[in-house]
């Protein structure tokens, strides 16, 4: 068999971590190749080596039979390799058009023509069906839109190999469809696509072949997906069987705990109200930009609320300061861990204890013993893959960073409401079901949990009740007996589009 693209014997070590060991596999021309594995299995590392951003300690990359040596990202892209990393790399202060043209601005006599650039890029975006304004600043776009723009950037240059590292992690199913059409077109042009994802559905829908990594080693290679089952891949990934990842069980719910009514901040207002009960897991489903994250940020005070009320067990207030919210017993885990989750350059331990340490520190002094104990407990409970609690969080894999941020809030005491925005974004199946179990356990102890998720199966799998949001309002409410995929999706779509999809 002749492969167009090949990894041969790739080995990569970091101080204290063997990230990849002798990984070899190949992909045929015009094939979409899935790459799966647990958090920290080495998927992103493999992609980073392809992108020229990191160098392997041993091994080679072959494209069309020729060995490639990429000394830098520029070098790789000049040789037709484009990579969309797990953590997005767009420049927030530039416009979408500028980001897409970075390094190759269309110019006339050395002057960049803004108008032409925006028009060109808009044409490309429209062509791919990406609903984004080319003249908009990237910082003003929701995370999902940014992810689409990043993929469009890779598609714009004629690449021979494109690697996408969890491209759909912050896309809803509808937006993912747009991405899949893009992939199909690239594939038809003969491009090799490496596709990293934790979503099994996508792998089966998109991929022609796939590789499973475990602990930095090749666990399985499937040249065709025919006859391969999900259960088989899961056990190749985690080395054990997982029967039901949702594992939801009915729980008795307590009295009404949280009432949210008509919150508005500086940027937008979300009319309407909702309540949540003690021990309830309340889901928020919707398309990107529906206002779910904004609503959560207003409840928490991450963006200060101007008007509207939050009522927590009879105590009514307008949240303006996260610190206050934490003291009241509300915690918020944001969707964008890179932007406002992880503390760069600081250890796993510090990232876990930053908030909870006020519970044990005395007179402003730390208690190192207690800090260590709490950090170790969370690392163990969440199975964070790290050489030690002293490791810089920036060196952890994406999914493991997510676990650490969850651990930050699990270390808190006396929490009454936990808000999690895309809690399993970038988390592998095994860890996912562990996190769900954890959420159930917290709910059983009486915690009210608000879950924002763009993954329909997740929302339906773990929530007791779901509110659907559409264009900044709550458009529908479902309980477990009224859940259905069609109904939730229909409620998420704005009126105009509702009919076209139903037809």
């Amino acid at each position, binding site marked *: 068999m002749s492969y167009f693209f090949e990894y041969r014997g790739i080995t990569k070590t970091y101080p204290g971590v063997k990230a990849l060991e002798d990984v070899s596999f190949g992909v045929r021309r015009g094939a979409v190749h899935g790459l799966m594995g647990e958090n920290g299995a080495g998927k992103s590392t493999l992609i980073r080596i392809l992108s020229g951003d990191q160098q392997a300690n041993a091994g080679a990359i072959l494209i069309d039979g020729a060995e490639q040596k990429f000394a830098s990202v520029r070098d790789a892209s000049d040789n037709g390799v484009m990579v969309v990393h797990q953590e997005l790399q767009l420049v927030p202060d530039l416009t979408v058009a500028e980001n897409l043209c970075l390094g190759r601005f269309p110019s006339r006599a050395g002057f960049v023509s803004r108008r032409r650039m925006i028009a060109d890029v808009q044409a490309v975006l429209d062509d791919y069906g990406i609903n984004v304004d080319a003249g908009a600043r990237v910082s003003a776009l929701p995370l999902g839109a940014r992810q689409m723009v990043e993929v469009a950037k890779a598609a714009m240059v004629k690449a021979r190999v494109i690697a996408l590292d969890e491209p759909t992690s912050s896309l809803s199913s509808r937006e993912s469809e747009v991405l899949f059409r893009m992939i199909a077109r690239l594939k038809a042009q003969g491009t090799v696509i490496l596709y990293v994802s934790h979503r099994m559905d996508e792998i089966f829908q998109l991929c022609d072949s796939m590789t499973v990594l475990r602990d930095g080693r090749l666990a399985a290679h499937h040249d065709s997906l025919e006859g391969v089952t999900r259960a088989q891949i899961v056990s190749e990934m985690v080395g054990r069987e997982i029967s039901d990842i949702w594992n939801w069980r009915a729980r008795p719910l307590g009295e009404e705990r949280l009432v949210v009514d008509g919150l508005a901040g500086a940027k937008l207002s979300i009319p309407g109200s909702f309540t949540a009960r003690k021990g309830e897991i309340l889901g928020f489903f919707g398309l990107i930009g529906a206002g779910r994250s904004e609503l959560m940020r207003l409840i928490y005070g991450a963006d200060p609320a101007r008007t509207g009320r939050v009522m927590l067990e009879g105590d009514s207030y307008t949240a303006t300061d996260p*610190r206050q919210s*934490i003291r009241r017993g509300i915690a918020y885990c944001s969707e964008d861990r890179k932007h406002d*989750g*992880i503390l*760069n350059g*600081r250890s796993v331990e510090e990232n876990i204890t930053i908030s909870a*340490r*006020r519970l044990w520190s005395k007179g*402003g002094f730390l208690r190192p013993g207690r800090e260590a104990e709490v950090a170790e407990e969370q690392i163990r409970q969440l199975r964070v893959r790290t050489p030690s609690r002293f490791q810089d969080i920036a060196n952890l894999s994406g999914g493991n960073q997510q676990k650490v941020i969850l651990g930050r809030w699990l270390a808190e005491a006396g929490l009454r409401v936990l808000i999690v925005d895309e809690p399993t974004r970038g988390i592998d199946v095994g860890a996912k079901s562990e996190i769900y179990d954890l959420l159930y356990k917290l709910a059983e102890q009486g915690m009210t949990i608000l879950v924002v998720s763009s993954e329909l199966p997740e929302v339906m799998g773990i929530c007791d009740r779901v509110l659907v949001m559409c264009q900044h309002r709550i458009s529908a409410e479902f309980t477990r007996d009224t859940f259905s995929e069609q109904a939730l999706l229909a409620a998420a779509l704005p009126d105009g589009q509702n009919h076209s999809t139903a037809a």
Partner: protein
Amino acid sequence: MTSTLKKLLLGEQGLLVIFAIALVLVSVFVPNFLSTRNVIGLLQAVVTVGLVACSMMLCLATRDFDLSVGSTVAFTGMMAVMVTNATGSIPLGILGAIAAGAAVGMVNGIIIAKIGINALITTLATMQLVRGFGLIISDGRAVGVKEPAFYNIALSNVFGIPTPIIVLAVAFLVFGIVLNRTVFGRNTLAIGGNPDAARLAGVKVVRTRVTIFAIQGVMAAIAGVLLASRITSGQPNAATGLELSAISACVLGGVSLAGGRATMTGVMVGVMILGIAENVMNLLNIQAFYQYVVRGVILLFAVLLDNLRTSSGIRR
């Protein structure tokens, strides 16, 4: 062999290793370097920059910057002398200096952290403002001390060690504890690591940053008083360029300008490297003009080393 050497130089303690090697070389090859007199002179020479570097470390750790420290040292030294002269009381003079320093720091902090103006621009402005105030209140001339006991602040000693050196040692100790053992220190580093994340995790970001600037002002005032005492007068033009020396010392000591990374031992080593370089050049009678060149080379070297370290191992 080469790989262990590389590991040693590029590891966590790389700077310390290089410092130790340099120290041994200098002790062996430079005559008189290890004499008690020279060592004490060396330490006295780094007191001003050392004190300011302590608080500059916190400032840089939160991704901030302070260019106004040199002016503040001169201004507060002047305040100390003038208030002492006017009231006849040295404690009042010192208090006046510290109040003035804290005020400058608070103003910096409020403009930068509360209003959100860029730290570089803000402190560039206050640097000139404060230098101007110092010149105005002194009419541009040195102001002599009328109270002879004022000299004693710098001249006195404890067990034979001059008071300023003791003060510096205490500052190193206190800031080391603050950085590593207190919630305040950890919050400082967390803000530098990611200000948005720190805020969402309940850290009082604005207040912490303003406090750091205020501390910076107080440290500059302490340095200002000691300096005025040593030179027996308030000099409106004292300590020019001090801000750059202090930042150099921090960077040499591995403090990241991108925030989130700082150690007290690193900064101590940074201060000592600068001090020793100057001292050795004086002992060897090297013309002052060359000293600038050498300092520039040392700083570049340190930054390159740091760059090498980051790219060889950990990302960013």
